């Protein structure tokens, strides 16, 4: 086990005012992964190895092949996926169905959790209780209480957590952040996010689960229900209890960028109000259309989620820009300031900033902002130094809570009042109950 430092001060780059030179901006912030000494090698377990999890495992295998890390375990409740993962990870990796075997291993320093959304919080908390560092896919949590429990458990365990809103770590996210932080559009009063609709569907009847899937473990903390193939794989995100729709899936990216660039991590709205429309038939119940207004105070600004909204047509590009060509123009955000506007497309693994931010040349007195070396690399550095990651557990939980509150306001059909200092809804007894939900045992926080 690596004994990580835990008391280093929080990084000071957030408001690095003044004469940051271009050279300083370009200097690597982190120890390059390939500079890790052999005895510093981190050992990883991968929990959930399909979809994004397969991508993470592939990336980690590349690092292992370069001698930078070890992969000791892969785990999935779908045995077909597990077999594929075993093939990808190599024969040194043990295979598990139950993630708790991975957490029991003393030789594993850190876990990469890429399971469906409803498992993120419980697996993160359990990993923290076993002292493992955690990379967990977004959105971090499905309820307010899950988010609070994650923060408490991870801080108590003093582990490094990275939530998978990797938009913050993209090259053009840095350029956008730097452009906005230098007041190029003045004081920003609105951020309007747009995204295309969530789908309707899931019209298959319930059935017995296939033999290669452990349905009990897949459900985890969710209340028991019969298997339905409309839940699997990837489509879990169209169901409220296990996903919550585009506002949760991509909102955890686009709104993550907004909170980061607005310097709003650690804050929250005072009110949340949503309207929308649920699917007219089928198992999937996440809102097809949903519009949410989040009102922030001190400083005053408004964040909106518009699904669908008014997309900004993608700009023409050569492909040689830092982020390359815009391949996903269907979501993004428009920032409105006192002296102009700025927009970006994407916000996840693809984040594309408007030309004026990419072409802006900082003067000698310009503020610099943190430039992530890559989302995974930023996490590695958090593990090794103890400093906060770019999408740490508080930031990740708070962005996920934004999406939770949006959906909750939609479901309840009423405006919610939010006290961020306590991370609590106020003045609505039922909504307060719904900040939490009972969990099936033993898959419980």
């Amino acid at each position: 086990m690596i004994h990580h430092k835990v008391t280093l001060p929080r990084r000071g780059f957030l408001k690095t005012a003044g004469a940051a030179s271009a050279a300083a901006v370009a200097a690597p912030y982190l120890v390059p992964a390939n500079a890790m000494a052999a005895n510093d090698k981190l050992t990883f377990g991968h929990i959930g190895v399909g979809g994004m999890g397969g991508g993470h495992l592939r990336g980690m295998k590349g690092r292992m092949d370069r001698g930078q890390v070890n992969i000791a375990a892969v785990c999935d409740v779908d045995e077909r996926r597990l077999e594929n993962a075993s093939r990808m990870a190599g024969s040194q990796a043990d295979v598990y169905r139950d993630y708790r075997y991975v957490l029991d291993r003393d030789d594993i320093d850190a876990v990469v959790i890429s399971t469906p959304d409803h498992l993120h919080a419980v697996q993160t908390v359990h990993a923290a209780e076993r002292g493992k560092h955690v990379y967990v896919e977004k959105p971090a949590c499905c309820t307010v209480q899950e988010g609070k429990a994650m923060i408490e458990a991870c801080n108590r365990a003093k582990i490094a957590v990275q939530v998978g809103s990797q938009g913050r770590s993209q090259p053009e996210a840095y350029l956008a952040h730097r452009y906005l932080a230098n007041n190029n559009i003045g004081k920003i009063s609105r951020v309007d996010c747009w995204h295309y609709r969530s789908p309707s569907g899931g019209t298959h009847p319930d059935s017995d689960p296939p033999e290669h899937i452990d349905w009990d473990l897949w459900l985890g903390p969710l209340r028991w229900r019969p298997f339905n193939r409309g839940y699997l794989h990837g489509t879990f995100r169209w169901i409220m209890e296990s996903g919550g729709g585009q506002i949760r899936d991509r909102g955890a990216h686009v709104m993550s960028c907004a909170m980061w660039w607005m310097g709003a991590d650690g804050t929250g709205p005072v009110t949340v109000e949503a309207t929308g429309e649920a699917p007219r038939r089928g198992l999937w119940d996440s809102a097809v259309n949903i519009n949410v207004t989040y009102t922030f105070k001190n400083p005053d600004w408004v964040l909106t989620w518009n699904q669908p909204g008014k997309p900004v047509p993608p700009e023409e590009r050569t492909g040689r820009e830092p982020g390359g060509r815009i391949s996903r123009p269907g979501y993004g955000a428009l920032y409105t300031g006192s002296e102009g506007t700025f927009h970006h497309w994407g916000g996840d693994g693809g984040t594309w900033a408007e030309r004026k931010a990419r072409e802006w040349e900082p003067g000698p007195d310009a503020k610099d902002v943190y430039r992530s070396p890559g989302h995974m690399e930023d996490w590695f550095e958090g593990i090794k130094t103890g400093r906060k990651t770019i999408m740490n557990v508080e930031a990740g939980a708070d962005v996920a809570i934004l999406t939770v509150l949006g959906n909750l306001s939609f479901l309840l059909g009423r405006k919610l009042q939010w006290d961020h200092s306590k991370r609590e809804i106020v003045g609505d007894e039922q909504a307060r109950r719904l900040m939490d939900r009972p969990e099936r045992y033993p898959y419980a926080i």
Partner: protein
Amino acid sequence: MNEQLTLEMLIECIQSGNANVRAAARDQAGQVGAAAIEPLAGIACEGEFEVARAANRAMQNVVYHAGRPGASDEATAVSAELVKLVGAEPPLQFRRDVLWMLWQIAGPEAVEPVAALLDNADLRDDARMCLEGLPADEAVAALRAGLAAAPDDFKPAVAHSLRKRGVEVPDVPNLRLVPTKETSVAPVGR
């Protein structure tokens, strides 16, 4: 559907063969209130697949609407209707759904009928979760009594609910982190 939705209109529309009509009724069911619960439950248990689903979700919308601030009488009335449905007759999964709705809106009046299900092999965990979610002190008392009466394989779950409610339960093991399920997949290449 711009006019005030009546119970009769709701029940007619929720059974429509037109998904748009059903969805509109489902989304406005809250305004009908507690009177809608029993007839919607009948449709949810016996209707055609998508009609039953619409009725079930309409019931949930009634729960959400009745739980709004300043409507405690409505909440109590809806809770009373839901409690009638946790008995033996409705299908198992529907009773699970009702227990899930109950913790979102009910008060102490729901504790006794829910606690009675703690010895029901099929519903005991849903009943436990419902009691865990009910903020009433009576729910904690019911969980304490449930723990004393629970068979050994159910005690850890009840103890967990009590711990969530702030009760120390030192004598029952916490199994949250104990792995139990082994894979049949062998590591490739060994």
